[in-house]
């Protein structure tokens, strides 16, 4: 397992976005992307960059763990729609895990909850 901050690589973002995202690799071919704060217009580019960087060769499963995300707007939603499309093109299974009811509400408002594989926990996604 390895962890690394993404914000520094994204470049140009304010200091408050440092360590916004953690990346873990719990097993071979599996990547867990973990946003640590709210995902809005100011932070979605960092999440997009992180997902794009990890969607490389050898990856079979990506889990976006939203357990620390209390709030997400449509820019975050757009980022995840883009990620899902990229995952399908790369034959990667993408799971969204641990989202709270408020975050889930935006998926339902946009009628995108059926478009994603949404699971209750990271463990459920790992065993899927």
């Amino acid at each position, binding site marked *: 397992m390895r962890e690394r901050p993404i914000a520094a690589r994204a470049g140009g973002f304010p200091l408050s976005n440092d360590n916004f995202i953690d990346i873990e690799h719990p097993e071979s071919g599996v990547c867990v992307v973990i946003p640590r704060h709210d995902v809005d217009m100011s932070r979605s580019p960092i999440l997009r960059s992180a997902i794009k960087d990890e969607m490389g060769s050898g990856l079979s499963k990506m889990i976006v763990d939203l357990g620390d995300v209390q709030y997400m707007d449509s820019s975050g939603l757009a980022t995840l729609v883009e990620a899902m499309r990229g995952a399908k093109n790369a034959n990667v299974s993408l799971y969204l895990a641990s989202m709270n009811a*408020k975050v889930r509400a935006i998926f339902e408002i946009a009628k995108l909850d059926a478009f994603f594989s949404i699971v209750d926990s990271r463990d459920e996604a790992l065993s899927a």
Partner: protein
Amino acid sequence: MSETNPPIKIELVSDPMYLCGARELVSCIAHRIGFDDMECSKIALAVDEAMCNVIRHGYERATDKPIWVTITPLSESDESFGGIEIVIEDEAKQIEPTAIKGRELEDIRPGGLGVHIIREVMDSVVFEKRETVGMRLTMQKRADRPEEAPRISSRSSCPIPAERRVS
């Protein structure tokens, strides 16, 4: 519309970094008025989406332009159980209000969801040109049930959402 309290008006610059401040303020006041946690989150989302649209489309991502947010509690009346009115104004380029439409949801692609979300969350949404320059968006949300009517008290404090409380 009848007003029970004087409106709150704040000015922000069009930097996405400060969206969180507007969200917190709106959510906090909506709590105070009497909306539940989920409704407060959705109202804050609508404000966030509106401001994002101003920044993205109106100001073409310039981060030093003004945005004004005015919040007015709506009082209970025979016709309604009270609620909140939020007005967002800018000095961006003017467009015809009829041209502001959300896209079809069947077309699954990134972006273009903001107007749809605003209309889905709020009960009343009116875009209009300001008198001289810029646009104005007026949104209203009414409490759903009598027991969720505004409970405005000068002594009550803004509740902290459960997930943000520190034990």
